[in-house]
């Protein structure tokens, strides 16, 4: 996702003179092409995220379209008040792009994990929260964000994740989930970098005769209510999948929506991280396994919920 972001940013920068890239001292060489093409529109803001976010708001108030970028916790929770007050309260069209969603940087430890950011950011008025499912969705999300005249948060994974789409999804629209594969027994609503894992889980389910609809629910705020209404009406089981805490994330947003609409799900299962810091060393795959977020665990739990065991 990371490389797609840098590449798309460079392309957009060629056409849109308002685009300014602000980095929190990260992305060594990643933005070389952008820098070369637009030396007056790339700034390394240093390890000073509060200032980076505040100045992004000031730029956005003065006709520019800044993108702030660094590792997820530092571009979100570290400067949360600047996001809330400078960006969202002023409705300043800043695009906040995070790399390393959830446990993408599991090996770096809890300081670099991000399992609370969706919760924080979606509760702020005027904020849009997008969690792209693959590199193509990152490209589409960036272009869609620039068309909005409002704050947007784009929560990316890392580099090298499996690509799901064949190209930029033409149907990509903020607040409109994308059905990747249709099915009839269970509806798997995946947000962000859980999409490839969800596809793997669906393969395993298929081996057991379970037909799964897979949805890339890339926008957590605003929710695609039409998609939810249809899914909860049609499917005997609906599941949300995210690499984020069960508190305040995508599954929580859907739960709130269910409570508010009075819609009663036949069955509803949420996959996410626990209310605990993940302290052990190990990479993302290991962390997912320990937290019940790997494909075979997802498939097992879905089959259980369907009464297959």
């Amino acid at each position, binding site marked *: 996702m990371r490389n797609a972001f840098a590449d798309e940013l460079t392309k957009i920068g060629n056409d849109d003179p308002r685009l300014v890239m602000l980095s929190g001292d990260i992305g060594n060489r990643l933005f070389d092409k952008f820098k070369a093409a637009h030396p007056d529109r790339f*700034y390394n803001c240093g390890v000073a995220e509060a200032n980076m976010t505040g100045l992004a708001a000031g730029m956005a108030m003065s006709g520019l379209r800044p993108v702030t970028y660094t590792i997820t916790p530092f571009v979100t929770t570290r400067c949360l008040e600047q996001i809330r007050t400078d960006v969202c309260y002023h409705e300043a069209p800043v695009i906040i792009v995070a790399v390393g969603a959830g446990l993408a940087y599991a090996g770096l430890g809890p300081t670099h994990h991000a399992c609370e950011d969706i919760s924080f950011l979606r509760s702020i008025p005027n904020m849009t929260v997008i969690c792209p499912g693959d590199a193509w969705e990152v490209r589409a999300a960036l272009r869609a964000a620039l068309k909005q005249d409002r704050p947007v948060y784009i929560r990316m994974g890392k580099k090298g994740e499996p690509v799901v789409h064949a190209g930029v999804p033409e149907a990509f629209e903020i607040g409109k989930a994308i059905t990747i594969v249709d099915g009839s027994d269970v509806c798997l609503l995946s947000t962000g970098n859980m999409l490839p894992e969800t596809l793997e889980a669906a393969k395993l389910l298929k081996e057991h005769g379970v037909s799964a609809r897979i949805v890339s629910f890339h926008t957590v705020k605003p929710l695609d209510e039409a998609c939810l209404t249809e899914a909860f009406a049609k499917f005997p089981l609906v599941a949300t999948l995210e690499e984020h805490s069960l508190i305040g994330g995508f599954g929580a947003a859907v739960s709130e929506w269910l409570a508010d609409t009075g819609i009663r799900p036949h069955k509803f299962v949420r996959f996410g991280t626990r209310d605990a810091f993940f302290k052990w060393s190990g990479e993302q795959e290991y962390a997912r396994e320990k937290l019940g977020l790997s494909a075979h665990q997802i498939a097992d739990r879905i089959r259980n919920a369907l009464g297959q065991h």
Partner: protein
Amino acid sequence: MTALPDSREGSVMLKLQTSEPEASTPVDVEHLKRAAAELRGKVIEMSHRAGTAHLGSSLSCCDIVTAAYWHVCAIDPQNPRDPLRDRFILSKGHAASTLYAALAMRGFFPLEELDTFCQDGGRLAEHPPANLLPGVEAATGSLGHGLPIGIGMAMAGRIRKETFRVYALLSDGECNEGSVWEAAMFAAAQKLDNLCVIVDYNKWQATARSNETLALAPLRAKWEAFGWDAVEIDGHDIGTLARLMENVPNGSGKPFAIIANTVKGKGVSFMEDDNNWHYRAPTAEEVAKARKELGLA
């Protein structure tokens, strides 16, 4: 005040003039002093009527705000969103009454609206709002935000090749915030000379002497050490304030900090340097007495 001409070209011409000290508009000190006294009078009445806090902080920065709005800033109340206007950010948002009164006196909205300060359903809340009131450049109140926002505006001016200047008024207590110093280092690295900080150094913060709370002193040396061109002046010397602020960019190639030594509650003998006026509101009798001292009675 140097009002913006209608055309963009005209405005650029005007900025080129103001960047040269010898071409500066002569400072009418007596006129500015009178405006500052009237501004103080309004601020005291607003505090009395609304029963709100922060009067001492509002009074300490009246001369700075007067210099900005009556002499320095190229702003047009009829066109408050002109992209080429100078920006003045009241980063110490708790002195909102001073900003509101100045904006109303300069014609950004009717003077009568000052009577709605802190009233239910009004536009004049205790801290300046976002996207609600003409002339308010940034919603402040949480300290340490105005300078980063101002830097973004100054950077935008540079990127878009516009010649406006950005002024950010900070309190000394506000300099406790780490974001101020993040911002200071960034502005210096960028040699952002279209940016000016004025620190209203009234030596008090909400509950204690500022230098006993965190070690601010030597404040001018700190800003210099952070890469700024810095001066320390009497923050009630309105003529010097106007001349220094008008002379931005000043040719140093650095962002410019004015450490303005001020007195909290300035202008009213029984409020000066008495930190009880951080929270107290004056009675009707005290308003009358204050107005008399200010020569407004």
